[in-house]
């Protein structure tokens, strides 16, 4: 760990020196990053491979006896592993991408930000005590804000970065408060002693839980703390967006695991229920908003919210299982959540990289400006399709595996939990099914409108395939999607030490996985010994052979294929007659209009008669519910209070001195009363 941090610091220093030589600076910054990520990845794999936790000291302050250090537990190692798997391809991609997409004068800043961000995320996962954690957390926030504001000459970018900073600091504020309360109660700053016991009374624990939920929830992007995410993720350069969506949200998830689920003693069943509710709400709202987006990167950002919801849903189920003392169920639910952390990181990283290539090739983020890109960018299109299939959780790819695991957790939860409360599991299952199906609709649109049919703009017609340095990392990630989807036992193998290290969960025979498939069941509950199993490779073989059969059946006639123009309904077929992204999601927008509250405005400009319009303007928007009804009142109140406070802050030195005097006297009076 120390080596990785040292490499990052050296890289940052070198990048600073080389500021004026952009290409060299870029190379050094990214190569340094790859090297550091490799070191961290090897540490993480070592811990997961059974090497036991790794810890060490970063700084020792002799006078106060304070020690700052790192401790890579199996849980940390899992998140570090996910980070490494994404960070290395993203860094390689960035070598090609920054050359085109980032101005030379900003290369050094972006390179430094990239390293600072990755280094701080590594330290967040590995921190062994509160001070290190909060320091890394804050560096992470600042580095992200700087990267979001890369294009700071645009007002929208600055606003996104500002919104991100404000939301993050609300979160950090609650974290600081929560950690200090914990530290005071346990008398230690180190995570291992602080998070190990539950000496606190129940109401206090509830308050702490709420504080940490807000603190980590902001980064995870759970509704209603998600408002910054769809603004900030698209604003950053695409490879940074990939990092943010794939990895940055997992810092929040890590916190929720480490503190909310396993740091405050045995969780209350209501906490688990609350997480399940928040997770289900987040996933459904995230995917509903993703559906209506026409900006590709915003669509992906909203879909990140959906997946964060699924992760939190699994975690909630695990917490409930733990509260009820069902160790096998807890293991299944936690495995589902952690597996989705990895799977989401891989396919969302892939999709953001693909989106980055498309944006670079067309100069636009708007779906209605793409079209027909598969001909111009065949490889990017193929990899994007793999990502789209993964995120739609169809079999043979990795998204299906975590969805399958989450369903196991929910159904077994229903079957083995006592009381009425268990009805929450099938409700969550129905919502999960709906989110997954809506995600499929969303990505049929995302892929189909962008890559198929006719180009919708001159830029799309002239698009050029991305260079090799950008294609290769996408190929790697697409391959990982496929391998994890076909051989889910690999993921489970990595998860076993993590599950073993978490209190209250015991995988045992609940979740068995060889190289090929997975089996789930609860030995402890009668009749649920073997609940379900899945062998994706078997389906793959079956499907491939039927595909061959279909091809043979069709090719039997041996007739040559004739190409003919598509029938344009009597008119001329052009990009303007194609179905648009807006139109594609229109039926669902109508169905869920209670959520969207859409408004539509059609203006027809005509001179002679309304039947011969010269211009039709169409404007449709959906209501930003959370921004308008949740945050706007808060902002108004804060501004009103601030305006009121202006009276105190008159700018007169005499007045300020008088305040000090009055406060001093008051303090003396107050303290004078106590012995």
């Amino acid at each position, binding site marked *: 760990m120390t080596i990785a941090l040292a490499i990052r610091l050296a890289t940052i220093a070198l990048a600073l020196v080389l500021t004026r030589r952009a290409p060299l600076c870029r190379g050094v910054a990214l190569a340094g990053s790859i090297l550091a990520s490799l070191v961290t990845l090897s540490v993480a794999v070592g811990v997961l491979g059974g090497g036991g936790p790794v810890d060490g000291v970063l700084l020792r302050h002799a006078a106060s006896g304070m020690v700052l250090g790192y401790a890579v537990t199996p849980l940390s190692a899992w998140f570090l592993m996910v980070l490494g798997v994404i960070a290395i391809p993203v860094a390689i991609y960035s070598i090609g991408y920054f050359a085109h997409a980032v101005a030379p004068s900003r290369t050094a800043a972006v390179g430094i930000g990239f390293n600072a961000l990755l280094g701080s995320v590594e330290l967040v996962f590995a921190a062994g005590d509160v001070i290190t954690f909060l320091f890394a957390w804050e560096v992470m926030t600042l580095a992200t804000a700087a990267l979001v504001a890369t294009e700071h000459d645009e007002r929208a970018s600055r606003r996104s970065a500002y919104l991100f900073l404000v939301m993050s600091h609300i979160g950090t504020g609650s974290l600081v408060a929560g950690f200090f309360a914990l530290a005071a109660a346990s008398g230690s700053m180190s995570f291992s002693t602080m998070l190990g016991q539950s000496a606190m009374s129940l109401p206090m624990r509830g308050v702490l839980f709420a504080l940490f939920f807000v603190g980590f929830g902001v980064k995870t992007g759970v509704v209603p703390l998600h408002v910054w995410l769809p603004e900030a993720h698209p604003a950053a350069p695409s490879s940074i967006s990939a990092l943010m969506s794939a990895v940055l949200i997992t810092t929040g998830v890590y916190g929720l695991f480490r503190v909310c689920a396993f740091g405050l003693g045995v969780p209350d069943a209501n906490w688990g229920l609350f997480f399940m509710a928040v997770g289900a709400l987040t996933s459904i709202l995230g995917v509903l908003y993703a559906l209506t987006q026409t900006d590709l990167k915003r669509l992906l950002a909203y879909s990140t919210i959906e997946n964060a919801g699924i992760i939190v849903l699994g975690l909630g189920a695990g917490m409930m299982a733990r509260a009820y003392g069902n160790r096998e169920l807890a293991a299944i639910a936690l495995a589902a959540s952690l597996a989705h952390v990895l799977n989401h990181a891989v396919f969302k990283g892939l999709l953001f990289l693909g989106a980055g290539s498309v944006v670079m090739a067309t100069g636009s983020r708007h779906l209605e400006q793409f079209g027909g890109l598969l001909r111009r960018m065949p490889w990017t299109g193929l990899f994007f399709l793999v990502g789209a299939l993964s995120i739609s959780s169809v079999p043979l790819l990795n998204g299906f595996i975590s969805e399958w695991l989450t369903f196991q957790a929910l159904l077994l939860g229903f079957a083995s939990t006592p009381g009425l409360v268990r009805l929450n599991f099938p409700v969550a299952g129905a919502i999960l099914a709906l989110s997954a199906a809506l995600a499929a609709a969303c990505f049929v649109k995302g892929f189909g409108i962008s890559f198929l049919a006719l180009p919708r703009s001159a830029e799309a017609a002239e698009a050029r395939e991305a260079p090799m340095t950008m294609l290769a990392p996408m190929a790697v990630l697409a391959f990982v999607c496929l391998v994890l989807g076909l051989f889910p036992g690999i993921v489970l193998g990595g998860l076993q030490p993590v599950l073993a290290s978490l209190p209250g969960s015991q995988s045992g025979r609940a979740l068995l996985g060889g190289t090929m498939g997975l089996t789930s069941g609860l030995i402890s509950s009668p009749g649920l010994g073997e609940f379900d199993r899945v062998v994706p490779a078997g389906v793959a073989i079956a499907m491939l052979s039927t*595909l061959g059969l279909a091809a043979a059946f069709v090719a039997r006639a041996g007739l040559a294929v004739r190409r003919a123009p598509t029938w344009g309904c009597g008119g001329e077929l052009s990009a303007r007659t194609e179905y648009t992204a807006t139109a594609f999601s229109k039926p*669902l927008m109508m169905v869920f209009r209670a959520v969207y509250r859409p408004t539509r405005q059609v203006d027809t400009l005509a001179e002679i008669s309304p039947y011969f319009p010269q211009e039709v303007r169409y404007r449709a928007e959906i209501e930003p519910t959370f921004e308008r009804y949740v945050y706007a009142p808060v902002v108004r109140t804060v501004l009103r209070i601030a305006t009121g406070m202006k009276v105190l802050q008159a700018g007169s030195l005499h007045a300020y001195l008088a305040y000090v005097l009055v406060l001093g006297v008051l303090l003396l009076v107050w303290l004078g009363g106590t012995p």
Partner: protein
Amino acid sequence: MNIPVIQTIATVMWAILQAAGMLAVAPLLKTAIKKMKARLQGRQGPPWLQGYYDLAKLVSKEPVRSETASWVYVAGPRVYFAAAVTATTLVPVLVPAAPLEAVGGILLLVGVLALGRFALATAALDTGSPFGGMGASRDMTIAALAEPALMLGLFTSALAAGSLNLGVLVRTLLEQGPSFQPSDLLAFSGLFVIVIAETGRIPVDNPATHLELTMIHEAMVLEYAGPDLALVEWASAVKELLYLTLLVDLFIPAGIAPHVAPVALVVAFAAWAGKVLLLAAAVTLVESTNAKLRLFRVPELVSISLGLAFLALAIRFL
């Protein structure tokens, strides 16, 4: 040769046989529904073998594809077909076990069908025709809305049997013997609605129409011709047969062959065919006595089904 190898070969042969059987019977089901519908309207209806004639005609035609289409357009019908055929090996038909039940259960079945739908809907966007987009959009909308009700309905049966595996499920049902649970009726009604929605029948979609504004599935595959279309049609027929078989398995498994013997298999085949035909008659009745719903009324229908499924779950387990 050792036992596992022989077992694997036997399983594969069984899977192939079952898939081939379902493929062979599926066009007949389509014709049967058409015939029953025609009789209700006082017409004669097509000859029994019309389904096969149609497929043979389509296959022998020259394949015509759009100039604007890419490989995705070609892959669409093939993946759709492969998904439907693969799915048939995951359900028990004549014996209380599915050939590939060791590979996966209900979740995999639903997932494989979702993969086929994804492929076909994506391919529909490839020609640049507004119809393809319209059909894909509507098909994905209805599928998304139907998904939670389908899952909940299936989960009710699965939880009663303690397994998500269809083979285990049917065996448990047979062991328990014929018993009537009020929840079965609710779950069955809920799933029946979903089966109608998923197979594109009236009142959700009209398989016989080519009227611009009412098409859903037909709009999605409007640009396909010749052998490509044959694959789509055949796969749709297989899917319909599959859904009806699934209903039979979950709610009226009686008659299934307890052991592999010629007589038992013949009886099981007759029982299965009879039950599927009965359900097909129900589908025909619904189709003949209802008008197609407006697209935006479909969510109401589906939410009724979701409500039924949830009620079934609640009264079964509380």
